[in-house]
């Protein structure tokens, strides 16, 4: 294996934890999975934890008084502890299990839209504004478009600089005394940009706004400390952190969770229900209507423990090393234009690019014929694509199991693509 400083120690062994990496594709070519920003692969321990739960401990949680119920509840709540530790959350009761990051962001947008409005209140009304950025994933755009439209509030956007960063020059105009919410991504899933979240949180808090951080791309790649970043809400999604689909996390400050109205109604989120009225449980249960994603929580717990065992600092260092190698590789191809920062120190591991003369679909198709899996399209970030005058792009995204040889395979396959399309 190539020797690049910063690679995860024992990478060859780590790769063996991921059964899918042994897959061979059509034409008996090995899988080169470079679509981890889309969804990550799962280590055996995560799969095994889920299987063990389903085969031996499956029962509903909270409501069940029997032994299986106690085992299942304990496993489920232990996952909440694991998430709290992973985020350095002050309290486990601040960790809400959702369906995915999108639901987590919608939960915040909807409950804020339903909250009372006025000075010192959390709700948004016609006099208020919400600030997001042009590099957001659609899941952190559409909920705010819907909420501000419903409440008649103003939606404002941080623009982007030519080199792929947030344009902070107008920050004091954007975030003003009418700003109720600032919601932004920590790491862009298209540009890779790492945003100065703590700095923006400080500005937002100075005017009394609530700060929502979309950590969907940050949580897989770098240590996340909700206290250090000084956010009020942080969302991430299980399937990108080597966990299963069907589960996401919303962390929120206890005091705010207390003040927000309920989201969805049903079993588990109530205190008591009568025909006249219902009262609700405290957070986190208040926001978890119905049977929660139990086996998914078990899987997510195992996933975050796996990441913790590798060490998020080590994962981050690996990501930077591989991304640097990837950027160098792309530069060597010729005709490649990278969208977003080109210094690996300033960015995450998702690298979107254009290959002159070949449409991203066709690039992806050719790469796929060589076993190299990348994403082509707008990556759920249409406004950011528009900002850079492109309709779509090709994105290669590495993760903790990515080896330099896989980057070599990508670079090779890009050369082949160029020759195939005669560009």
């Amino acid at each position, binding site marked *: 294996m190539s020797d690049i400083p910063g690679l995860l120690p024992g990478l060859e062994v780590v790769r063996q934890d991921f059964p899918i990496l042994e897959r061979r594709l059509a034409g008996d070519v090995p899988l080169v999975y470079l679509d981890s920003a889309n969804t990550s692969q799962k280590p055996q321990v995560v799969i095994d934890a889920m299987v063990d739960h389903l085969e031996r401990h499956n029962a509903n949680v909270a*409501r069940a008084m029997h032994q299986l119920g106690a085992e299942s509840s304990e496993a489920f709540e232990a996952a909440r502890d694991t998430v709290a530790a992973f985020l350095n959350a002050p309290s486990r009761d601040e960790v809400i299990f959702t369906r995915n990051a999108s639901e987590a962001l919608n939960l915040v947008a909807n409950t804020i839209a339903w909250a009372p409005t006025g000075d010192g209140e959390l709700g948004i009304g016609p006099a208020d504004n919400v600030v997001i950025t042009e590099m957001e994933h659609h899941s952190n755009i559409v909920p705010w478009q819907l909420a501000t439209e419903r409440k008649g509030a103003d939606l404002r956007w941080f623009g982007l600089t030519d080199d792929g960063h947030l344009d902070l020059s107008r920050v004091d105009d954007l975030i003003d005394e009418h700003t109720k919410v600032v919601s932004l991504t920590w790491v862009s899933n298209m540009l890779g940009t790492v945003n100065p979240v703590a700095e923006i949180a400080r500005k937002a808090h100075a005017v009394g706004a609530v700060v929502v951080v979309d950590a969907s791309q940050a949580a897989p790649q770098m240590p996340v400390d909700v206290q250090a970043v000084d956010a009020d809400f942080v969302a991430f999604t299980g399937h990108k952190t080597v966990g299963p689909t069907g589960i996401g996390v919303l962390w929120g400050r206890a005091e705010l969770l207390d003040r927000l109205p309920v989201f969805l109604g049903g079993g588990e989120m109530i205190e*008591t229900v009568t025909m006249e009225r219902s009262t609700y449980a405290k957070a986190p249960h208040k926001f978890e209507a119905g049977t929660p994603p139990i086996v998914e929580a078990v899987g997510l717990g195992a996933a975050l423990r796996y990441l913790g065992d590798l060490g998020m600092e080590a994962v981050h260092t690996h990501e930077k090393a591989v991304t640097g190698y990837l950027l160098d590789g792309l530069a060597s191809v010729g005709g490649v234009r990278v969208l977003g920062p080109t210094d690996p120190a300033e960015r995450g591991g998702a690298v979107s690019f254009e290959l002159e003369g070949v449409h991203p679909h066709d690039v992806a198709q050719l790469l796929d014929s060589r076993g190299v899996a990348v994403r082509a399209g707008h990556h759920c970030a249409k406004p950011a694509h528009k900002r850079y005058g492109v309709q779509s792009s090709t994105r290669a995204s590495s993760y903790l199991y990515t080896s330099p040889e896989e980057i070599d395979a990508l670079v090779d396959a890009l050369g082949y693509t160029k020759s195939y399309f005669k560009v």
Partner: protein
Amino acid sequence: MSQQQADLDAMYQEIILDHYKNPQNEGLRDPFEAEVHHVNPTCGDEVTLRVHVSGAGDDAVVADVSYDAEGCSISQAATSVMTELLIGRRVSEAMGVHEQFLELMQGRGQVEPDEDVLEDGVAFAGVAKFPARVKCALLSWMAWKDATAQALDRADNPTEENR
């Protein structure tokens, strides 16, 4: 006898079943400074509980705890035992008893109870081995703490009406 059976018998002590069948201090009484209603959302067990505090500051005393409760043997017996333990004590002492009971319940069977403090409450040591039942044993203790906090709060900050 199996461990299983032994654990069960350790939970359903004679003393608990006695309190269940003959609950002490039952019923809602006057006077009281605070009344609360607590529910176990999982199973629906409920308690309405009143606290009467006499005296103030360090001399405040739990003059009465009265209640109307519906629930299982563990929650009913816990309520009954609690009233016996707390009525007549200084509030500060009562809080200490509450602390010890809480510790015992959350100790998963690893905490050795102090009979001098908890008296009949030691009978609940066996409950700590059944996580699902811990909430039953704690329901009215939590209600008492809540009501007492409210009662003290009102004593310190009398509103217009009861000044």
